[in-house]
């Protein structure tokens, strides 16, 4: 493992599988009466959030606390980009306080990379979402969810997602979740297809390791998992698509469309969902939809990442990892 987690593209197949396997160990902690490990006792982790995200912050915080880390929450919403020095100054302040890891969410693409590479601080940096660039722990929790559902909880250990067909639908252009997932799923051997109106696909997408389609109905029957991306209503005003209803008709997932998916296929969403536009209540509430599991899995994945980045050389919980490690 490397010292930082900035981009899903930085993970090798073995790194990624190690994280997923470690997360399975971590998930068992959640089943215990006392959901806590002493692993990061005496370590300080700061959640540095320049952009609102209650869900991600709480998920990281839960992960940190379950590993017994000391947690500092720092929110500095709004002012960061207009006052660029705040990132550097804030980082150095935290460094001076002896922080071991920084979990950073920032509105500017590349901010975590700058934090990790500019010599401003020594702490490990974990990207909790930067601009429209990357959100690697989201991709990891998505892959974890897919592996559990499509392969199995125990059967999946040591496995990647080879041969699985994953479809991502929606605002790819502005989505760090899409970028992270394309990178990670490709690394894990999955076949990825992006589906969106052409206005929401970035120029330059042809270099990505995936296919692009404008036709959701054609792709659905060939999908093992369909991940709906959030579409912000304000995109409509910027002429990315004509109306909410037209978007919904062409790219929304409703019960009829879900019926065209293979029986085993799952529906995913990083949340928060815009019900009625990108996904209907019928789909969102169906047993095939994994939104709630994704949230729970997020804590396990973040525990695994924190544990591995902060020097976890020994198996975190049991010795189940030992065999997998020897394969490398």
């Amino acid at each position, binding site marked *: 493992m490397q010292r930082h987690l900035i981009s899903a593209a930085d993970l090798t197949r073995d790194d990624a599988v190690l994280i997923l396997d470690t997360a399975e160990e971590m998930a068992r902690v959640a089943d215990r009466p006392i959901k806590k490990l002493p692993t990061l006792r005496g370590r300080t982790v700061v959640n540095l959030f320049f952009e609102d995200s209650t869900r991600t912050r709480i998920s990281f915080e839960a992960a940190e606390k379950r590993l017994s880390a000391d947690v500092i929450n720092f929110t500095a919403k709004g002012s960061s980009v207009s*006052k660029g020095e705040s990132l550097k100054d804030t980082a150095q302040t935290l460094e001076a306080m002896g922080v071991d890891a920084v979990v950073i969410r920032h509105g500017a693409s590349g901010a975590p990379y700058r934090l990790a590479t500019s010599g401003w601080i020594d702490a490990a940096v974990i990207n909790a979402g930067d601009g429209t660039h990357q959100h690697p722990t989201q991709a990891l929790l998505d892959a974890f969810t897919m592996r559990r559902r499509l392969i199995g909880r125990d059967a999946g250990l040591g496995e990647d997602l080879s041969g699985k067909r994953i479809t991502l639908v929606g605002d790819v252009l502005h989505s760090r979740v899409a970028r992270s997932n394309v990178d990670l799923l490709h690394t894990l051997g999955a076949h990825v297809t992006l589906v969106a109106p052409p206005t929401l696909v970035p120029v330059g997408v042809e270099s990505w390791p995936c296919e692009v389609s404008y036709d959701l109905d054609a792709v659905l029957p060939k999908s093992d998992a369909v991940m709906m991306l959030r579409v912000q209503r304000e995109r409509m005003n910027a002429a990315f698509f004509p109306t909410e209803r037209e978007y919904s008709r062409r790219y929304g997932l409703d019960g009829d469309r879900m019926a065209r998916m293979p029986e085993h296929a799952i529906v995913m969403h990083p949340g928060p969902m815009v019900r009625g536009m990108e996904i209907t209540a019928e789909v969102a509430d169906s047993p095939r939809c994994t939104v709630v599991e994704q949230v729970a899995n997020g804590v396990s994945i973040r525990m695994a990442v924190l544990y591995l980045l902060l020097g976890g050389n020994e198996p975190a919980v049991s010795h189940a990892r030992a065999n997998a490690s020897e394969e490398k």
Partner: protein
Amino acid sequence: MSKILIRGAKVLGGEPQDVLIEGSQIASVGVGLSADGAEVVEAAGKVLLPGLVDLHTHLREPGREDSETVLTGTRAAASGGYTAVFAMANTFPVADTAGVVEQVYRLGQEHGYCDVQPIGAVTVGLEGKKLAELGAMHESAAGVTVFSDDGKCVDDAVIMRRALEYVKAFGGVVAQHAQEPRLTEGAQMNEGVVSAELGLGGWPAVAEESIIARDVLLAEHVGSRVHICHLSTAGSVEIVRWAKSRGIDVTAEVTPHHLLLTDELVRSYNPVYKVNPPLRTERDVLALRAALADGTIDIVATDHAPHPHEDKDCEWAAAAMGMVGLETALSVVQETMVETGLLDWAGVAERMSFKPAEIGRAKGHGRPVSAGEPANLTLVDTAYRGSVDPAGFASRSRNTPYEGRELPGRVTHTWLRGKATLVDGKLT
């Protein structure tokens, strides 16, 4: 009268000759000139060029003296071999009145390192709505002939048309920053493969090309001349080539950094590479070099854009756009154009002195190296190799993309009207 004999220099890269300066003028050029009573500068092996002229410099004074002043900027220019620079209008206050341009002009004359020829804003406050007093700026002591809202595009077609027509009265030229504003909202870097991956807002080539296409057609329609600032894409080259073949009076410039660097560097998220227009692709770089070689692009202009450290030592999106360039321009041109065989030194003189002086109507600059001409000269040690150390810059700012990079060539001497501003690489 002071006399300086430059002995054995390759004038414009040709056979070694001696050049005798008397007072502010070149007295004679020949072989074996007498050194009698003259200070001798041994120049064997070096290349002597007419003093370089930069049609696109940001001196920041008035208003942003923390990044550059007329004094520090002209010292940087002299270090880079320049004897005249055209100072862009996007200062605070904007150079949109006779008063501001005269102040900038006067500071240049007082400091004496380099002639400063102010560029006047096309529109009041660079707001693109109302023409600035172009005639008054021309008639001022600064004698403004080049007008530009650089940093912003004159995007209103009617305002652009009027400006092009209006400056014909006094032989002026409008220098356009070609950037369609709606297509570049939120733009952070070249739109393409790298921007898609990095998740940074794209600045598409078509935003530049569509404005250039419009403006050359406007220039043709009203019979005016137009100059395109910092052209950066292969498509822009094609449009300018077409316009010239049609007889349209268009000139164009390319910056040194667009001749050398590509958007791949943005993968570092290091804002030192953040510039407007953005660094493009390898294909664009090669097209720009070819166009500069064949004359489609007329000149090299630095777009020297100094910024204080704090405006670059931050996350990419928050960083200011621009790079300093005066002190490295000739080296970059040597590497990208001379050492690749695309241009000889006479060609460099054409594109970095003669032609920019002609476009900007800079009196006394861009003149031949011959008897009776003003002694505006630059001596270059072309054999020099060394890595760029911004700590040694005369510019107040250090935002160079070349820190630690090895570049060839070094300006050793610069003379402004016979007065040395740079001797053995040191400012006087």
